């Protein structure tokens, strides 16, 4: 008797209860980490008069990032010198991030620096999808001795990685 009563009770409970399905949704949001430059080649005239060269807007680079924490690294193929055979001219670069202070944690290129070792800019905020663009300055300090005339080159590499 008790058994049949319990079955009836369970039946009543079951009829008033809810049941259904659960779906696990995962959205993989694409990562964007890009750096680009406005010009892949810089041609600079050095008149060999000893006068310094400085151009704060020699070029620009644009960073696009869908991550909040990332680092942009600048490195030189010849440790911050332009080379022509065994001849070398030291140069410095600078990156002006002052227009986006809220997005930058550390800028090790806020003043003119020779890239004897790679230098970094650490960011702490994702960019708009259009990216953020910064000026790159170029500098050769005044000199007292002539440089051997000719063509001097270096390769400046800009890379980006999640911090």
């Amino acid at each position, binding site marked *: 008797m008790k058994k049949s009563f319990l079955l009836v009770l369970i039946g009543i409970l079951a009829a008033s209860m*809810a049941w259904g399905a*659960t*779906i*696990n*949704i995962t959205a993989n949001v694409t*990562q*964007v980490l890009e750096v680009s430059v406005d010009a892949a080649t810089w041609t600079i005239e050095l008149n060999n008069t000893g006068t310094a060269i400085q151009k704060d807007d020699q070029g620009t680079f644009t960073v696009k*990032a869908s991550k909040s924490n990332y680092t942009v690294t600048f490195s030189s193929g010849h440790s911050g010198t332009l080379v022509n055979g065994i001849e070398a001219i030291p140069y410095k670069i600078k990156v002006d991030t002052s227009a986006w202070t809220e997005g930058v944690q550390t800028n090790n290129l806020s003043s003119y620096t020779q890239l004897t070792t790679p230098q970094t800019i650490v960011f702490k905020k994702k960019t708009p*999808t259009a990216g953020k663009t910064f000026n790159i300055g170029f500098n050769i300090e005044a000199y007292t001795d002539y440089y051997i005339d000719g063509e001097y080159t270096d390769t400046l590499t800009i890379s980006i990685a999640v911090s």
Partner: protein
Amino acid sequence: MKKWVLLVFALSMILKLNAQASIGITVVVAPPPGASITMDSYIWEISFANDGVTTYQNDNQGTMTIRSSNRKNFRVDFSSQNLGRLKQGTDYVAYYIKATAITGGNIGLVGTPAIVAGYVQLTSVQSMEFNKKTPKKGIQFYTGIKIDPILGEFYESGGYTDTLTITFVGL
């Protein structure tokens, strides 16, 4: 008449049990035979472009089958663990759900619920109410999902998750 007798009997037994002693009873409730909500897939994996322009929309993300057994009046509720948002740590991506009837004819759907009229965010439970038993094989709906971009902005990239629960409620 018989139902009433059974109910009164059941209630009297409950009262009797309560009067005599307290007994801890665990009842595992099974759905009535034949009533169910099933999906063609219980895992949805979505790739979102994250370019600040492109919307993800798949009106046929899943196919839902509802079988009401002998229930004439019932409701299907949609709810989200994160209130209609996919979550990654402290970051969220809003998403929207829509149900589109596949089964034609009179399926007993009452009115046009918001979730049928268009995409809705599950900030609260969204429901579809029915007043007709389903055929034995059930009735089917497509379940769509939509994620809008934030124009000109990236979402923090990575994997976002949520749990969507679809519940059958007998009325």
